[in-house]
Protein backbone atom coordinates (compact mmCIF):
# COMPACT_ATOMS: atom_id res chain seq x y z
CA UNK A 1 0.00 0.00 0.00
CA UNK A 2 1.32 3.41 -0.98
CA UNK A 3 0.54 6.40 1.23
CA UNK A 4 0.43 8.85 -1.69
CA UNK A 5 -2.32 6.85 -3.36
CA UNK A 6 -4.32 6.61 -0.11
CA UNK A 7 -3.89 10.39 0.21
CA UNK A 8 -5.24 10.83 -3.32
CA UNK A 9 -8.46 9.07 -2.31
CA UNK A 10 -8.72 11.16 0.87
CA UNK A 11 -8.19 14.39 -1.09
CA UNK A 12 -10.75 13.33 -3.72
CA UNK A 13 -13.44 12.81 -1.04
CA UNK A 14 -12.53 15.94 0.89
CA UNK A 15 -12.98 17.96 -2.33
CA UNK A 16 -16.32 16.23 -2.81
CA UNK A 17 -17.43 16.99 0.76
CA UNK A 18 -16.52 20.65 0.31
CA UNK A 19 -18.55 20.98 -2.87
CA UNK A 20 -21.42 18.56 -2.31
CA UNK A 21 -24.23 19.84 -0.09
CA UNK A 22 -25.58 16.29 0.28
CA UNK A 23 -22.38 15.25 2.03
CA UNK A 24 -22.56 18.25 4.39
CA UNK A 25 -26.16 17.35 5.22
CA UNK A 26 -25.13 13.73 5.91
CA UNK A 27 -22.16 14.78 7.98
CA UNK A 28 -23.69 17.50 10.20
CA UNK A 29 -27.38 18.03 9.53
CA UNK A 30 -28.75 14.60 10.52
CA UNK A 31 -26.64 14.09 13.68
CA UNK A 32 -27.63 17.57 14.86
CA UNK A 33 -31.29 17.16 13.92
CA UNK A 34 -31.47 13.78 15.69
CA UNK A 35 -30.03 15.15 18.88
CA UNK A 36 -32.31 18.24 18.79
CA UNK A 37 -35.45 16.15 18.28
CA UNK A 38 -34.65 13.45 20.82
CA UNK A 39 -33.34 16.10 23.18
CA UNK A 40 -36.74 17.86 23.23
CA UNK A 41 -38.40 14.52 23.78
CA UNK A 42 -36.24 13.83 26.84
CA UNK A 43 -36.90 17.36 28.12
CA UNK A 44 -40.63 16.74 27.82
CA UNK A 45 -40.41 13.43 29.66
CA UNK A 46 -38.11 14.83 32.33
CA UNK A 47 -40.42 17.83 33.00
CA UNK A 48 -43.38 15.57 33.51
CA UNK A 49 -41.33 13.47 35.95
CA UNK A 50 -41.55 10.40 33.74
CA UNK A 51 -37.84 9.88 33.64
CA UNK A 52 -34.88 9.51 35.90
CA UNK A 53 -31.95 11.78 34.96
CA UNK A 54 -29.78 8.79 33.98
CA UNK A 55 -32.39 7.67 31.46
CA UNK A 56 -32.14 11.06 29.76
CA UNK A 57 -28.35 10.61 29.53
CA UNK A 58 -28.81 7.10 28.15
CA UNK A 59 -31.20 8.32 25.45
CA UNK A 60 -28.92 11.18 24.39
CA UNK A 61 -25.81 9.00 24.61
CA UNK A 62 -27.59 6.35 22.54
CA UNK A 63 -28.52 8.89 19.87
CA UNK A 64 -24.96 10.22 19.65
CA UNK A 65 -23.39 6.77 19.42
CA UNK A 66 -25.97 5.43 16.96
CA UNK A 67 -25.30 8.50 14.80
CA UNK A 68 -21.61 7.59 14.83
CA UNK A 69 -22.30 4.00 13.81
CA UNK A 70 -24.88 4.84 11.16
CA UNK A 71 -22.86 7.69 9.58
CA UNK A 72 -19.74 5.59 9.29
CA UNK A 73 -21.50 2.65 7.64
CA UNK A 74 -23.49 4.90 5.30
CA UNK A 75 -20.52 7.07 4.30
CA UNK A 76 -18.42 4.02 3.40
CA UNK A 77 -21.03 2.84 0.93
CA UNK A 78 -22.06 6.29 -0.33
CA UNK A 79 -18.42 7.22 -0.95
CA UNK A 80 -18.19 4.28 -3.32
CA UNK A 81 -21.62 4.93 -4.90
CA UNK A 82 -20.36 8.43 -5.68
CA UNK A 83 -17.74 6.90 -7.99
CA UNK A 84 -20.47 4.97 -9.78
CA UNK A 85 -22.67 8.05 -10.12
CA UNK A 86 -19.73 10.01 -11.54
CA UNK A 87 -18.65 7.10 -13.85
CA UNK A 88 -15.20 7.51 -12.32
CA UNK A 89 -14.46 3.86 -11.49
CA UNK A 90 -12.59 3.07 -14.70
CA UNK A 91 -10.52 6.23 -14.32
CA UNK A 92 -9.54 5.23 -10.80
CA UNK A 93 -8.90 1.54 -11.33
CA UNK A 94 -7.00 1.93 -14.58
CA UNK A 95 -4.29 3.55 -12.44
CA UNK A 96 -1.96 1.71 -10.02
CA UNK A 97 -4.45 2.46 -7.23
CA UNK A 98 -5.38 -0.82 -5.56
CA UNK A 99 -8.72 -1.67 -4.04
CA UNK A 100 -7.11 -1.90 -0.59
CA UNK A 101 -5.65 1.61 -0.99
CA UNK A 102 -9.01 2.93 -2.16
CA UNK A 103 -10.79 1.38 0.84
CA UNK A 104 -8.11 2.67 3.25
CA UNK A 105 -8.56 6.21 1.88
CA UNK A 106 -12.32 6.00 2.07
CA UNK A 107 -12.14 4.65 5.62
CA UNK A 108 -9.97 7.58 6.72
CA UNK A 109 -12.40 10.08 5.19
CA UNK A 110 -15.32 8.35 6.91
CA UNK A 111 -13.52 8.57 10.26
CA UNK A 112 -12.95 12.30 9.75
CA UNK A 113 -16.60 12.84 8.85
CA UNK A 114 -17.80 10.83 11.83
CA UNK A 115 -15.62 12.97 14.10
CA UNK A 116 -17.20 16.14 12.72
CA UNK A 117 -20.72 14.76 13.23
CA UNK A 118 -19.86 13.50 16.72
CA UNK A 119 -18.45 16.86 17.78
CA UNK A 120 -21.47 18.73 16.38
CA UNK A 121 -24.01 16.41 18.06
CA UNK A 122 -22.10 16.41 21.37
CA UNK A 123 -21.88 20.21 21.35
CA UNK A 124 -25.66 20.54 20.86
CA UNK A 125 -26.34 17.95 23.59
CA UNK A 126 -24.10 19.89 25.95
CA UNK A 127 -25.37 23.39 25.06
CA UNK A 128 -29.10 22.64 24.83
CA UNK A 129 -29.66 19.71 27.21
CA UNK A 130 -26.73 19.94 29.64
CA UNK A 131 -25.57 16.48 28.64
CA UNK A 132 -21.79 16.51 28.57
CA UNK A 133 -20.45 13.33 27.00
CA UNK A 134 -16.78 14.36 27.31
CA UNK A 135 -16.16 13.08 30.88
CA UNK A 136 -17.61 9.71 29.84
CA UNK A 137 -15.55 9.44 26.69
CA UNK A 138 -12.54 7.52 28.09
CA UNK A 139 -14.86 4.70 29.13
CA UNK A 140 -17.08 4.96 26.07
CA UNK A 141 -14.27 4.88 23.52
CA UNK A 142 -13.83 1.05 23.59
CA UNK A 143 -17.55 0.64 22.87
CA UNK A 144 -17.39 3.28 20.16
CA UNK A 145 -14.44 1.46 18.60
CA UNK A 146 -16.55 -1.69 18.53
CA UNK A 147 -19.39 0.22 16.86
CA UNK A 148 -17.04 1.58 14.21
CA UNK A 149 -15.53 -1.85 13.56
CA UNK A 150 -18.97 -3.32 13.02
CA UNK A 151 -19.91 -0.34 10.82
CA UNK A 152 -16.75 -1.02 8.83
CA UNK A 153 -17.63 -4.69 8.38
CA UNK A 154 -21.13 -3.77 7.19
CA UNK A 155 -19.75 -0.99 4.99
CA UNK A 156 -17.36 -3.44 3.32
CA UNK A 157 -20.12 -6.00 2.76
CA UNK A 158 -22.51 -3.40 1.31
CA UNK A 159 -19.76 -1.95 -0.91
CA UNK A 160 -19.19 -5.50 -2.18
CA UNK A 161 -22.91 -5.80 -3.00
CA UNK A 162 -22.76 -2.48 -4.85
CA UNK A 163 -19.68 -3.67 -6.76
CA UNK A 164 -21.66 -6.69 -7.91
CA UNK A 165 -25.17 -5.27 -8.35
CA UNK A 166 -24.21 -1.58 -8.91
CA UNK A 167 -26.73 1.17 -8.13
CA UNK A 168 -29.61 -1.32 -8.18
CA UNK A 169 -28.87 -2.05 -4.51
CA UNK A 170 -27.72 1.43 -3.48
CA UNK A 171 -30.65 1.75 -1.03
CA UNK A 172 -28.74 -0.65 1.22
CA UNK A 173 -26.28 2.17 1.93
CA UNK A 174 -28.97 4.17 3.73
CA UNK A 175 -31.39 1.43 4.75
CA UNK A 176 -29.43 -1.54 6.04
CA UNK A 177 -28.52 -0.06 9.41
CA UNK A 178 -32.23 0.57 10.06
CA UNK A 179 -32.74 -3.22 10.05
CA UNK A 180 -30.24 -3.56 12.87
CA UNK A 181 -31.56 -0.71 15.00
CA UNK A 182 -34.36 -2.63 16.82
CA UNK A 183 -31.98 -5.41 17.88
CA UNK A 184 -29.15 -3.00 18.68
CA UNK A 185 -31.05 -1.78 21.76
CA UNK A 186 -30.07 1.84 21.17
CA UNK A 187 -32.79 3.41 23.36
CA UNK A 188 -33.79 0.53 25.63
CA UNK A 189 -32.09 -2.27 27.52
CA UNK A 190 -31.79 -5.68 25.94
CA UNK A 191 -34.07 -7.09 28.64
CA UNK A 192 -37.02 -5.19 27.16
CA UNK A 193 -36.90 -7.33 24.01
CA UNK A 194 -38.86 -10.58 23.75
CA UNK A 195 -36.70 -13.62 24.52
CA UNK A 196 -36.27 -14.69 20.86
CA UNK A 197 -35.14 -11.18 19.87
CA UNK A 198 -32.73 -11.07 22.81
CA UNK A 199 -30.98 -14.09 21.29
CA UNK A 200 -30.52 -12.13 18.06
CA UNK A 201 -29.42 -9.02 19.96
CA UNK A 202 -26.67 -11.04 21.67
CA UNK A 203 -24.96 -11.61 18.35
CA UNK A 204 -25.07 -7.90 17.48
CA UNK A 205 -21.86 -6.02 18.48
CA UNK A 206 -24.00 -2.87 18.49
CA UNK A 207 -26.28 -4.24 21.23
CA UNK A 208 -23.26 -4.95 23.44
CA UNK A 209 -21.91 -1.45 22.89
CA UNK A 210 -25.22 0.16 23.85
CA UNK A 211 -25.64 -2.11 26.87
CA UNK A 212 -22.11 -1.17 27.91
CA UNK A 213 -22.81 2.53 27.38
CA UNK A 214 -25.92 2.37 29.56
CA UNK A 215 -23.94 0.62 32.28
CA UNK A 216 -21.41 3.45 32.29
CA UNK A 217 -23.98 6.26 32.24
CA UNK A 218 -25.94 4.53 35.03
CA UNK A 219 -22.78 4.46 37.15
CA UNK A 220 -22.33 0.68 36.97
CA UNK A 221 -18.84 0.97 35.46
CA UNK A 222 -17.22 -0.56 32.41
CA UNK A 223 -18.56 -3.97 31.44
CA UNK A 224 -15.77 -6.20 30.20
CA UNK A 225 -18.34 -8.81 29.28
CA UNK A 226 -20.10 -6.56 26.77
CA UNK A 227 -16.82 -5.17 25.46
CA UNK A 228 -15.26 -8.57 24.79
CA UNK A 229 -18.46 -9.98 23.35
CA UNK A 230 -18.42 -7.02 20.96
CA UNK A 231 -14.77 -7.62 20.06
CA UNK A 232 -15.31 -11.33 19.47
CA UNK A 233 -18.36 -10.78 17.29
CA UNK A 234 -16.57 -8.06 15.35
CA UNK A 235 -13.66 -10.36 14.58
CA UNK A 236 -16.12 -12.89 13.13
CA UNK A 237 -18.15 -10.30 11.16
CA UNK A 238 -15.06 -8.50 9.92
CA UNK A 239 -13.50 -11.74 8.68
CA UNK A 240 -16.79 -12.67 7.00
CA UNK A 241 -17.01 -9.22 5.35
CA UNK A 242 -13.46 -9.48 3.98
CA UNK A 243 -14.00 -13.00 2.61
CA UNK A 244 -17.34 -11.94 1.09
CA UNK A 245 -15.81 -8.82 -0.46
CA UNK A 246 -12.85 -10.74 -1.93
CA UNK A 247 -15.19 -13.35 -3.40
CA UNK A 248 -17.62 -10.82 -4.85
CA UNK A 249 -14.80 -8.63 -6.23
CA UNK A 250 -13.36 -11.60 -8.10
CA UNK A 251 -16.80 -12.38 -9.52
CA UNK A 252 -17.20 -8.72 -10.49
CA UNK A 253 -13.92 -8.73 -12.40
CA UNK A 254 -14.76 -12.03 -14.07
CA UNK A 255 -18.11 -10.74 -15.24
CA UNK A 256 -16.67 -7.39 -16.32
CA UNK A 257 -19.01 -5.54 -13.98
CA UNK A 258 -16.38 -3.08 -12.80
CA UNK A 259 -16.70 -1.36 -16.16
CA UNK A 260 -20.50 -1.35 -16.18
CA UNK A 261 -21.08 2.06 -14.73
CA UNK A 262 -24.63 2.40 -13.51
Amino acid sequence: MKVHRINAVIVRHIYESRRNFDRVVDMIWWPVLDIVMWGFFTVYLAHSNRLQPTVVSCLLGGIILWGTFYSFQRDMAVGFIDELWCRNLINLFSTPLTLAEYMAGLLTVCLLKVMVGLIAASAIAWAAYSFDIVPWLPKLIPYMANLLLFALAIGIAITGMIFRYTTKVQALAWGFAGLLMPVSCVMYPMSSLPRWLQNIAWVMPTAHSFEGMRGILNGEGFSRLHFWWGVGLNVVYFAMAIVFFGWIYEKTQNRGLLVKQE
Partner: protein
Amino acid sequence: MLVEVENLSKTFGEFRAVDNVSFGIERGEIIGMLGPNGAGKTTTIHMILGLITPTSGRISIFGKSMATHRGEILEQMNFTSPYVAFPWRLTVLENLKVFARIYNLKKPRERIDELLEQFGITKLRDKAVARLSSGENTRVGLCKAFMNDPQLLLLDEPTAYLDPEVAWQVKNALLEAQREKGTTILYTSHNMAEVERMCKRIVFLHHGKVIAVGSPIEITQALLEEEREEPALEEVFLRVVKGKAA
Protein backbone atom coordinates in the same frame (compact mmCIF):
# COMPACT_ATOMS: atom_id res chain seq x y z
CA MET B 1 7.57 -6.34 -28.10
CA LEU B 2 6.22 -3.89 -25.55
CA VAL B 3 2.81 -5.54 -25.42
CA GLU B 4 2.11 -9.19 -26.14
CA VAL B 5 -1.45 -10.48 -26.21
CA GLU B 6 -1.66 -14.24 -26.68
CA ASN B 7 -4.79 -16.30 -27.29
CA LEU B 8 -6.92 -13.90 -25.29
CA SER B 9 -10.55 -14.91 -24.83
CA LYS B 10 -13.41 -13.61 -22.77
CA THR B 11 -16.83 -15.15 -22.44
CA PHE B 12 -19.79 -13.67 -20.59
CA GLY B 13 -22.08 -16.65 -20.02
CA GLU B 14 -22.75 -18.04 -23.49
CA PHE B 15 -21.49 -14.93 -25.29
CA ARG B 16 -17.90 -14.96 -26.52
CA ALA B 17 -16.91 -11.28 -26.55
CA VAL B 18 -13.23 -11.87 -27.37
CA ASP B 19 -12.21 -15.05 -29.14
CA ASN B 20 -8.60 -16.21 -29.15
CA VAL B 21 -7.11 -12.79 -29.95
CA SER B 22 -3.36 -12.49 -30.38
CA PHE B 23 -1.30 -9.47 -31.38
CA GLY B 24 1.80 -7.58 -30.33
CA ILE B 25 2.74 -3.91 -30.13
CA GLU B 26 6.28 -2.70 -30.76
CA ARG B 27 7.82 -0.01 -28.58
CA GLY B 28 7.08 3.48 -29.96
CA GLU B 29 4.37 2.26 -32.31
CA ILE B 30 0.89 3.74 -32.80
CA ILE B 31 -1.40 0.83 -33.47
CA GLY B 32 -5.06 1.12 -34.36
CA MET B 33 -7.75 -1.24 -33.22
CA LEU B 34 -10.73 -1.22 -35.52
CA GLY B 35 -13.99 -3.04 -35.68
CA PRO B 36 -17.72 -2.47 -35.62
CA ASN B 37 -19.61 -1.96 -32.36
CA GLY B 38 -19.49 -5.17 -30.32
CA ALA B 39 -16.36 -6.41 -32.07
CA GLY B 40 -14.54 -6.76 -28.74
CA LYS B 41 -12.28 -3.67 -28.87
CA THR B 42 -13.30 -2.17 -25.53
CA THR B 43 -13.35 -5.57 -23.78
CA THR B 44 -9.82 -6.20 -25.06
CA ILE B 45 -8.66 -2.78 -23.78
CA HIS B 46 -10.32 -3.42 -20.41
CA MET B 47 -8.51 -6.76 -20.16
CA ILE B 48 -5.20 -5.08 -21.01
CA LEU B 49 -5.92 -2.63 -18.18
CA GLY B 50 -6.73 -5.49 -15.80
CA LEU B 51 -10.29 -4.28 -15.27
CA ILE B 52 -11.75 -7.53 -16.60
CA THR B 53 -10.24 -10.95 -15.93
CA PRO B 54 -9.69 -12.88 -19.18
CA THR B 55 -11.34 -16.29 -19.46
CA SER B 56 -8.11 -17.55 -21.01
CA GLY B 57 -4.95 -16.25 -22.62
CA ARG B 58 -2.05 -14.12 -21.52
CA ILE B 59 -1.20 -10.41 -21.53
CA SER B 60 2.37 -9.33 -21.08
CA ILE B 61 3.42 -5.66 -20.95
CA PHE B 62 6.99 -4.37 -20.54
CA GLY B 63 7.96 -8.04 -20.38
CA LYS B 64 5.83 -8.66 -17.29
CA SER B 65 2.59 -10.54 -16.89
CA MET B 66 -0.42 -8.29 -16.32
CA ALA B 67 -1.95 -10.94 -14.07
CA THR B 68 0.90 -10.74 -11.55
CA HIS B 69 2.44 -7.25 -12.02
CA ARG B 70 -0.66 -5.10 -12.57
CA GLY B 71 0.29 -2.21 -10.25
CA GLU B 72 3.85 -2.01 -11.52
CA ILE B 73 2.70 -2.00 -15.15
CA LEU B 74 -0.05 0.57 -14.61
CA GLU B 75 2.51 3.01 -13.15
CA GLN B 76 3.89 3.35 -16.67
CA MET B 77 0.73 3.34 -18.72
CA ASN B 78 -2.49 5.31 -18.93
CA PHE B 79 -5.91 5.25 -20.49
CA THR B 80 -8.71 7.54 -21.50
CA SER B 81 -12.06 7.29 -23.14
CA PRO B 82 -14.77 9.92 -23.64
CA TYR B 83 -17.20 7.37 -22.19
CA VAL B 84 -15.77 7.60 -18.69
CA ALA B 85 -16.11 10.73 -16.63
CA PHE B 86 -14.74 12.59 -13.64
CA PRO B 87 -16.46 13.58 -10.39
CA TRP B 88 -18.53 16.42 -11.77
CA ARG B 89 -18.63 18.66 -8.71
CA LEU B 90 -14.85 18.86 -8.56
CA THR B 91 -13.06 21.42 -10.70
CA VAL B 92 -10.73 20.40 -13.51
CA LEU B 93 -7.75 21.29 -11.36
CA GLU B 94 -9.02 19.30 -8.35
CA ASN B 95 -9.64 16.23 -10.50
CA LEU B 96 -6.20 16.40 -12.05
CA LYS B 97 -4.59 16.96 -8.63
CA VAL B 98 -6.12 13.68 -7.44
CA PHE B 99 -4.51 11.80 -10.35
CA ALA B 100 -1.24 13.66 -9.87
CA ARG B 101 -1.20 12.28 -6.31
CA ILE B 102 -1.99 8.77 -7.49
CA TYR B 103 1.05 8.94 -9.79
CA ASN B 104 3.10 10.64 -7.07
CA LEU B 105 4.30 13.47 -9.33
CA LYS B 106 7.12 15.56 -7.91
CA LYS B 107 5.83 18.89 -9.26
CA PRO B 108 2.12 18.25 -9.80
CA ARG B 109 1.02 21.83 -10.30
CA GLU B 110 3.62 22.51 -12.99
CA ARG B 111 2.76 19.31 -14.82
CA ILE B 112 -0.98 20.07 -14.67
CA ASP B 113 -0.49 23.60 -16.00
CA GLU B 114 1.69 22.25 -18.81
CA LEU B 115 -0.96 19.70 -19.82
CA LEU B 116 -3.83 22.20 -19.59
CA GLU B 117 -1.92 24.44 -21.94
CA GLN B 118 -1.03 21.60 -24.29
CA PHE B 119 -4.70 20.69 -24.71
CA GLY B 120 -5.90 24.30 -24.75
CA ILE B 121 -8.02 24.23 -21.59
CA THR B 122 -6.04 26.45 -19.22
CA LYS B 123 -9.01 28.79 -18.83
CA LEU B 124 -11.17 25.87 -17.62
CA ARG B 125 -8.85 25.06 -14.72
CA ASP B 126 -11.19 26.28 -11.97
CA LYS B 127 -14.43 25.29 -13.64
CA ALA B 128 -16.47 22.37 -12.26
CA VAL B 129 -16.42 19.37 -14.57
CA ALA B 130 -20.25 19.43 -14.62
CA ARG B 131 -20.10 22.69 -16.53
CA LEU B 132 -17.83 21.43 -19.31
CA SER B 133 -18.91 20.41 -22.80
CA SER B 134 -18.25 16.83 -24.01
CA GLY B 135 -15.24 18.00 -26.00
CA GLU B 136 -13.80 19.84 -22.99
CA ASN B 137 -14.35 16.73 -20.87
CA THR B 138 -12.50 14.64 -23.42
CA ARG B 139 -9.56 17.02 -23.20
CA VAL B 140 -9.51 16.76 -19.40
CA GLY B 141 -9.35 12.99 -19.93
CA LEU B 142 -6.38 13.45 -22.22
CA CYS B 143 -4.63 15.62 -19.61
CA LYS B 144 -5.17 12.77 -17.15
CA ALA B 145 -3.89 10.26 -19.70
CA PHE B 146 -0.63 12.16 -20.21
CA MET B 147 -0.21 12.95 -16.50
CA ASN B 148 2.42 10.30 -15.74
CA ASP B 149 4.23 10.60 -19.08
CA PRO B 150 3.19 7.03 -19.89
CA GLN B 151 5.24 4.63 -21.98
CA LEU B 152 2.03 2.99 -23.13
CA LEU B 153 -1.19 4.87 -23.78
CA LEU B 154 -4.55 3.21 -24.44
CA LEU B 155 -6.98 5.57 -26.11
CA ASP B 156 -10.57 4.52 -26.71
CA GLU B 157 -12.00 6.86 -29.36
CA PRO B 158 -10.09 9.88 -28.03
CA THR B 159 -11.43 12.29 -30.64
CA ALA B 160 -15.07 11.17 -30.50
CA TYR B 161 -16.56 14.42 -29.21
CA LEU B 162 -14.00 16.87 -30.53
CA ASP B 163 -14.48 19.45 -33.25
CA PRO B 164 -12.06 19.09 -36.20
CA GLU B 165 -9.68 21.78 -34.94
CA VAL B 166 -9.31 20.29 -31.46
CA ALA B 167 -9.18 16.76 -32.87
CA TRP B 168 -6.30 17.91 -35.06
CA GLN B 169 -4.58 19.38 -31.96
CA VAL B 170 -5.02 16.11 -30.10
CA LYS B 171 -3.70 14.00 -32.97
CA ASN B 172 -0.65 16.27 -33.17
CA ALA B 173 -0.06 15.92 -29.45
CA LEU B 174 -0.17 12.13 -29.82
CA LEU B 175 2.20 12.12 -32.77
CA GLU B 176 4.53 14.46 -30.89
CA ALA B 177 4.52 12.20 -27.83
CA GLN B 178 5.33 9.22 -30.04
CA ARG B 179 8.07 11.07 -31.93
CA GLU B 180 9.76 12.82 -29.01
CA LYS B 181 9.20 10.45 -26.11
CA GLY B 182 8.69 7.17 -27.91
CA THR B 183 5.23 6.74 -26.39
CA THR B 184 3.50 3.58 -27.59
CA ILE B 185 -0.17 4.12 -28.36
CA LEU B 186 -3.08 1.72 -28.84
CA TYR B 187 -5.82 3.66 -30.52
CA THR B 188 -9.46 2.87 -31.30
CA SER B 189 -11.58 5.10 -33.46
CA HIS B 190 -14.52 5.03 -35.84
CA ASN B 191 -12.90 7.75 -37.92
CA MET B 192 -11.13 5.77 -40.64
CA ALA B 193 -9.29 8.73 -42.15
CA GLU B 194 -7.86 9.47 -38.72
CA VAL B 195 -6.70 5.88 -38.25
CA GLU B 196 -5.08 5.91 -41.69
CA ARG B 197 -3.19 9.06 -40.75
CA MET B 198 -2.20 8.01 -37.24
CA CYS B 199 -1.49 4.29 -37.37
CA LYS B 200 1.21 2.38 -39.15
CA ARG B 201 -0.46 -0.88 -38.22
CA ILE B 202 -4.01 -1.96 -37.50
CA VAL B 203 -5.65 -4.87 -35.72
CA PHE B 204 -9.10 -5.44 -37.22
CA LEU B 205 -11.60 -7.19 -34.95
CA HIS B 206 -14.96 -8.65 -35.87
CA HIS B 207 -17.23 -10.79 -33.65
CA GLY B 208 -14.41 -10.92 -31.10
CA LYS B 209 -11.86 -12.33 -33.53
CA VAL B 210 -8.86 -10.78 -35.23
CA ILE B 211 -9.70 -10.88 -38.93
CA ALA B 212 -6.65 -8.97 -40.17
CA VAL B 213 -3.46 -7.36 -38.90
CA GLY B 214 -1.23 -5.08 -40.95
CA SER B 215 -0.75 -1.63 -42.39
CA PRO B 216 -3.83 0.26 -43.66
CA ILE B 217 -3.03 -0.76 -47.25
CA GLU B 218 -2.43 -4.40 -46.26
CA ILE B 219 -5.73 -4.47 -44.39
CA THR B 220 -7.49 -2.91 -47.37
CA GLN B 221 -6.10 -5.46 -49.80
CA ALA B 222 -6.61 -8.41 -47.49
CA LEU B 223 -10.23 -7.68 -46.62
CA LEU B 224 -11.37 -6.32 -49.99
CA GLU B 225 -9.46 -9.17 -51.66
CA GLU B 226 -8.23 -6.96 -54.48
CA GLU B 227 -5.19 -4.88 -55.38
CA ARG B 228 -5.42 -1.25 -54.27
CA GLU B 229 -2.90 1.59 -54.35
CA GLU B 230 -4.44 3.63 -51.52
CA PRO B 231 -5.86 2.46 -48.21
CA ALA B 232 -9.67 2.45 -48.11
CA LEU B 233 -10.51 1.60 -44.52
CA GLU B 234 -13.99 3.08 -44.67
CA GLU B 235 -14.87 0.75 -47.53
CA VAL B 236 -13.31 -2.15 -45.63
CA PHE B 237 -15.30 -1.27 -42.55
CA LEU B 238 -18.60 -1.16 -44.43
CA ARG B 239 -17.80 -4.42 -46.19
CA VAL B 240 -17.08 -6.12 -42.86
CA VAL B 241 -20.22 -4.75 -41.22
CA LYS B 242 -22.35 -5.96 -44.13
CA GLY B 243 -20.79 -9.38 -43.74
CA LYS B 244 -19.17 -9.47 -47.15
CA ALA B 245 -15.67 -9.77 -45.75
CA ALA B 246 -14.16 -12.19 -43.27
